[in-house]
């Protein structure tokens, strides 16, 4: 059973960039919605060291509204961005949906 379900609002953790994470800086601390589940994959933090038998985790497709990623977004309100996050990078969003 995955920790997050489709439709859940999640916030990307603002954790260290010291190692290979594949979690983009522009998503850190931002809130989006889980729109798809991905298979369990070895997390980049282990794979980067060649540990193909490293820790496996569920991955999620998270959809962000562009205006939530970029406060000065110049496009339209409907515009979105999707990217994939491993479970360790996500936590339940605290704020109420606007």
């Amino acid at each position, binding site marked *: 059973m995955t920790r997050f379900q489709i439709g859940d609002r999640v916030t990307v953790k603002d954790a260290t960039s010291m190692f290979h994470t*594949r*979690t*983009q800086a*522009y998503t850190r601390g931002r809130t989006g919605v889980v729109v798809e589940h*991905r*298979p369990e*994959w070895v997390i*980049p933090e282990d794979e980067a060291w060649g540990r193909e038998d490293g820790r496996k985790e569920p*991955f999620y497709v998270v*959809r962000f509204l*562009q205006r939530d*990623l*970029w406060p000065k*977004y*110049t*496009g*339209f309100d*409907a*515009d*979105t*961005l*999707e*990217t*994939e996050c*491993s479970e360790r990078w996500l936590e339940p969003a605290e704020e109420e949906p606007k």
Partner: protein
Amino acid sequence: MSQTHDHHAPIQESGEISEFEILETAVRELAIEKGLFSAEDHRRFSEWAESVGPAGGSRLVAKAWTDPEFKARLLADGTETCKEVGIDWRDPTGSGTPSDYTYFYVLENTPTVHNVIVCTLCSCYPRPVLGMSPDWYRTPNYRRRLVRWPREVLAEFGLHMPPEVEVRVHDSNQKSRFMVMPMRPEGTEGWTEEQLAAIVTRDTMIGVALPQVDWTASEPPSKVGA
């Protein structure tokens, strides 16, 4: 005639070899020395990899436009359905070069959603179906700006999306690879799969262009300015 314009400028060697080039050369030479593969094997693979173009992707889209059941399968399981047109993500050459980046997803454009792909971390690209990526796709300029100013970047390619269409950027940062399935344009009723495939150009599958009935990538753009 001016002396300075008579011949080409001399070709400049940049003189800079990146760390990645040094790493690639070192690993390749070691592998050849150890007998893992020969220099000719390496050359053959490079020649093959560099000759893969976007024709596979065009075929997938054209087939999906004409066969709703194929389209449903392609959207549900891109990796597996690619085999129906002879593209095997897991064993692309049939000679032991598996990739772990074998999760292929097709993104369907609709009247209300326009998809476009980028990789902000490096240059991830669905190579088995589109071949090598265009140079601009790998530039920091495109990668940094598409996620932040997508409509402006699309406009620079000549594509202006109306406000009622959601522009959806896909930043391929993990193991998935994406390709855009554009909408079939009007005026293509009754076309064969082959005719349709010709207008599904590389850029329409990246998402920076839309297919047009009078435009294929195999002919020079003669209508510029017309």
